[in-house]
């Protein structure tokens, strides 16, 4: 049997504030982090987490990752030193675009002052693996480390990849997650140009009036460890990643397969990897972008993968309050899901009012609701527990990338 993988620390910086607690608490209060059509991390100040020198050597997406990682590392009890040999700790961080802000500002320098004026920091700031590199260096993690790039599925693909790395036995633990800060001139114009973002600036997933996603920024980071190693060091376990499923639509540059075939297969793979059945799920944290296409195809995929159970499981979208964090979304939503399961609450899809034909799942429209525990007994040997709750968190990206995590917490 392969290694079970537990979560011992989580951290998040989101438009709802710095810290994972702010994310779930404010979400459940119905607070929105969206202002003027974008969801920025207004409470985040890099110099609270980094020296002046460190801050200027990191693009904002990396700065956000560092702040989220600080929280996760502290919760895991690693802030006084690493519990394992550094060579046996990995670091895998996803991003959709990487340091596009740095790329754009250096593009302006090139045009205005010529090639000799371009900063020697431009490459290390903008490279998509900068988050993974910065975290590995900051915490001295010397195992396998890289960035994961799969658009809006990157955060979930990173975590899933990290799970497989732990299961392989090559490492005892991985610092993993996703980060994004791409609300720049080119990115805003480009997403608008392709009709992906909301012209009204409103994020209302699964609502009939939805008209696109709202761009957001942030980071989510988790400390994951092999259950055996975590137990041996006496760690407080806050959750478990039971399963991971990933597929590709191979259908279109940007549009999801309307029938939700690829995403349904990813959900089924995640459940099968977890050794659970659809009837055991207590909650679905949806990708729920608020785009006309995603929310319809995701609803189809859930029906396909979960069968009759789809109608009875609460499904909600974090993006209703923080917009779309793109490459960070899957990681931030994994953090939110673990917190939801621990607190026993299904957070709401805030702003949902109008049903659309065919979009008829339980989108938790009337505010947060206590989570029922259906059957928290995963069949993979994790051990029975009456109050163990199970969820999936969906992430789908341009390019047809689908990544689904199956999570458990008590």
């Amino acid at each position, binding site marked *: 049997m392969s290694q079970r993988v537990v979560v011992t620390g989580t951290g998040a910086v989101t438009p709802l504030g710095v810290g994972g607690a702010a994310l779930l608490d404010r979400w459940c209060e119905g607070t929105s982090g969206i202002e003027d059509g974008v969801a920025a991390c207004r409470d985040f100040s890099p110099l609270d987490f980094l020296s*002046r*020198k460190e801050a200027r050597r990191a693009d904002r997406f990396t700065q956000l990752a560092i702040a989220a990682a600080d929280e996760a590392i502290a919760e895991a009890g690693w802030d006084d030193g690493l519990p394992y040999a550094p060579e046996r700790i990995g670091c895998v961080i996803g991003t959709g675009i990487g340091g596009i802000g740095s790329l754009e500002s250096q593009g302006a320098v090139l045009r205005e002052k010529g090639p*000799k*004026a371009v900063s*020697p920091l431009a490459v290390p700031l903008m490279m998509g693996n900068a988050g993974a590199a910065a975290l590995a260096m900051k915490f001295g993690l010397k195992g396998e480390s890289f960035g994961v790039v799969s658009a809006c599925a990157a955060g979930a693909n990173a975590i899933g990849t990290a799970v497989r790395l732990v299961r392989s036995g090559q490492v005892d633990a991985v610092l993993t997650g996703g980060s994004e800060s791409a609300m720049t001139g080119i990115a805003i114009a480009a997403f608008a140009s392709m009709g992906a973002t909301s012209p009204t600036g409103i994020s209302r997933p699964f609502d009939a009036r939805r008209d696109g996603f709202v761009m957001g920024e942030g980071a989510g980071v988790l400390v994951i460890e092999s259950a055996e190693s975590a137990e041996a060091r006496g760690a407080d376990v806050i959750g478990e990643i039971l399963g991971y499923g990933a597929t590709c639509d191979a259908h279109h540059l940007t549009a999801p397969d309307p029938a939700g075939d690829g995403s349904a297969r990813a959900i089924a793979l995640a459940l099968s990897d977890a050794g659970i059945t659809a009837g055991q799920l207590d909650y679905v944290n949806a990708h729920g972008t608020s785009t006309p296409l995603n929310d319809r195809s995701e609803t189809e995929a859930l029906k396909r993968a979960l069968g009759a159970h789809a109608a009875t499981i609460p499904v909600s979208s974090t993006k209703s309050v923080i917009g779309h964090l793109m490459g960070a979304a899957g990681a931030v939503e994994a953090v939110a899901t673990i917190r939801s399961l621990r607190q026993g609450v299904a957070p709401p899809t805030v702003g949902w009012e109008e049903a659309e034909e065919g979009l008829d799942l339980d989108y938790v429209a009337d505010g947060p609701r206590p989570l029922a525990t259906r059957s928290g007994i995963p069949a993979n040997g994790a051990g029975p527990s009456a109050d163990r709750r199970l969820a999936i968190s969906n992430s789908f990206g341009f390019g047809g990338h689908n990544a689904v995590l199956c999570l458990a917490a008590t």
Partner: protein
Amino acid sequence: MKVKASPETAEKVITAGLIEVGAEPGDINREATFESLDVDSLDLVEIAQIVEDEFGVELVGDDVQNLKTVGDVIDMVVAKSA
């Protein structure tokens, strides 16, 4: 175009550049080594860009590699701009 750098103006520009790349202002003096200021090769490229912008003096390759202290770079800029 070259602009003649006096030791004082060179020191002023280089000190500002060092602060810009993240060195602690109180630690900067002629004898301070780049190592002690945590100034690495990437920082030195930025300092060289600032110097070139200000005085039209190009610091390249071996020039920069042999510089160990703040005084070394000030002296080189003054000499090269003369």
